[in-house]
């Protein structure tokens, strides 16, 4: 009851100066909106990555060239040439915890069909890729072992590519040109159902890895090996067996560093999620600086307001207001400002993160506004109000009634 009436008094005081109140909370609005929008970008990226890895299956492992703990200058991806197709074959044959492998090497290329042009990822794989990645074809077939051995000019389209080049036309049996080389389309992969451009897995064409090596890139190495363990609980054993075999094959002396690394899907998902988490925290903290600036704005206006209203405070004290009544009044005013700004900021922030997809720079970014970030922004803005409102409110409540009444 009492708080409610003080709240009424505070709101009345604030609405008496609408323009000033609005300008005061603008900082908070921008701050909260920025936090929510930025965190939604980071969160969207994180969830996207997690979903992607979750859909890949849990018994998946990757073999990459290069040491896990390399020192000195990092060699860029693709700087290693020591992973060979024979390694993949040996792993499949010798490690009994491994059921299948698929060498992997990719490139980007311009793809042409009739009068249509598309630039996309050309993913070289082994014939077991659909099985290892649990990613079947929806039309036609995947290439087989013989086609891989022959470095055949055949390809399987990702659904996005199929849509862009063929629309409703049946692509099977048609010929497309990849970097001017004619390839026969023999299948279409099932859609992963992703939107946008940046990380869209449907935006790719699968061809035999041998074809990428010999016809598109002219190299004798591969960039990674997809490995499928016999079961999810055998992944660690598979990892150990692969490491042992690879050290032997690559003649690594005991005590020296590996020239390859084996990572399971959980590792990869973990580090990807970590890097997006760092991004989220970074974006969120940059945005929250504006919240603090907004808080300082509130403190400034509250101090001005206390000085302007010293007489009013004197009158209130004279008619029986206690110190805490005055403290509460000004504190509530500050909190009403900051929470009001926070609520508007939440709406603006949600709106911004929704609209972000329509801005071309952010094409393909999914944004996820979590209840957590809304709650955080709300609590943060309320605490900004309390923190920055406390000093002016205390100043007001400590005034001497006689001096306040005399103040000119």
């Amino acid at each position: 009851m009492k708080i409610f009436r003080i709240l009424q008094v505070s709101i009345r005081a604030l609405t008496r100066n609408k323009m000033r109140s609005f300008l005061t909370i603008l900082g908070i609005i921008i701050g909260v909106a920025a936090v929510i929008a930025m965190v939604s970008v980071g969160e969207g990226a994180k969830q996207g990555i997690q979903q992607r890895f979750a859909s890949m299956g849990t018994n998946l492992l990757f073999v990459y060239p290069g040491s896990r703990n390399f020192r000195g200058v990092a060699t860029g991806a693709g700087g290693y040439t020591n992973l060979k197709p024979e390694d993949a074959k040996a792993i499949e044959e010798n490690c009994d915890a491994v059921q299948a492998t698929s060498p992997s090497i990719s490139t980007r290329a311009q793809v042409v069909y009739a009068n249509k042009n598309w630039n996309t990822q050309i993913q070289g794989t082994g014939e077991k890729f659909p099985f290892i990645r649990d990613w079947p074809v929806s039309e036609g077939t995947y290439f087989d072992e013989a086609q891989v051995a022959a470095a055949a000019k055949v390809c399987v389209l990702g659904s996005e590519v199929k849509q862009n080049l063929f629309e409703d036309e049946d692509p099977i049996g048609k010929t497309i040109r990849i970097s001017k080389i004619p390839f026969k389309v023999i299948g279409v992969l099932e859609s992963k159902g992703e939107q946008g451009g940046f990380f869209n897995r449907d935006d790719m064409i699968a061809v035999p890895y041998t074809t990428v090596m010999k016809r598109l890139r002219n190299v004798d190495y591969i960039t990674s090996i997809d490995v499928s363990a016999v079961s999810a609980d055998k992944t660690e054993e598979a990892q150990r067996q692969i490491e042992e075999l690879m050290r032997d094959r690559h003649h690594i002396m005991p005590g020296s560093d590996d020239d390859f690394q084996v990572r399971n899907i959980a590792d990869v998902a973990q580090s990807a999620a970590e890097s997006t988490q760092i991004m989220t925290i970074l974006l969120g903290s940059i945005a929250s600086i504006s919240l603090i600036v907004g808080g300082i704005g509130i403190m400034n206006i509250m101090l001005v307001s206390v000085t302007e209203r010293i007489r009013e405070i004197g009158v209130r004290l004279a008619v029986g207001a206690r110190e805490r009544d005055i403290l509460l009044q000004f504190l509530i005013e500050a909190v009403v400002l900051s929470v009001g700004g926070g609520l508007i900021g939440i709406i603006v922030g949600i709106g911004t993160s929704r609209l972000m997809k329509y801005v071309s720079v952010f094409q393909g970014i999914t944004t996820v506004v979590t209840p957590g970030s809304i709650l955080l922004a709300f609590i943060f803005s309320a605490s900004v109000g309390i923190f920055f409102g406390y000093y002016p409110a205390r100043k007001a409540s400590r005034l001497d009634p006689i001096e306040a009444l005399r103040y000119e």
Partner: protein
Amino acid sequence: MSEKIIHLENITRVYQIGETQVQALRGITYSVDYSEFLAIMGPSGSGKSTLMSILGLLDKPTSGRYFLEGMDVSQLSKDQMAAIRNRKIGFVFQNFNLLSRTTALENVELPMLYASVGSKESREKAMKALEIVGLKGWEHHRTNQLSGGQMQRVAIARALVNEPSIILADEPTGNLDSRTGAEIMDIFCRLNQERKITLVMVTHDPVIASYAKRRLYLKDGLIVREETNHSAEQRASASGG
């Protein structure tokens, strides 16, 4: 002592300004009866306002004892003082001290905000108080749209709305012309006679002071003279009539 509403025993008030001390009150011993109308007079700087602040529990005496309705209130905490100001004392100032940009009604409701009075009851009481001071129909006017006399009426309504036992008025007619001043004095006399509210008023104006039954003269922080005005009663009843 118990029949006195105010009893002061050797009250002093010393202001410390840096190294120097200003003795605003040097030892006031005095009593005020219930329902009395007392005027305090004296030259500027004699300590009248200082005494009023102590009587109104806005300030504490440096030494001495102050009994209000028989209770020693000289050394209460800030919150206790605030509670007594709220329930037992009404203030009327020379410069009105109304809240700007608020209505007459809101100003009068102010003391009840701090007295846990429900909003409906508070509104009714405020309307009633405004009616008593002759401002029926002016409730929703903003204070800056009112004349000086009307503003002082609002201030009086605010002082009496919590049904205090004492109203303290420091030069309440100081900013008003003599005719408006007389109207304000009529209201005070009515409150004093009909509602038995004890009235202590500081004034420089002998005409205004002649409304009071007793007059106290201060000089240099001491009581120098006390007068009883036998004609005040007749005069007040004539004008209040």
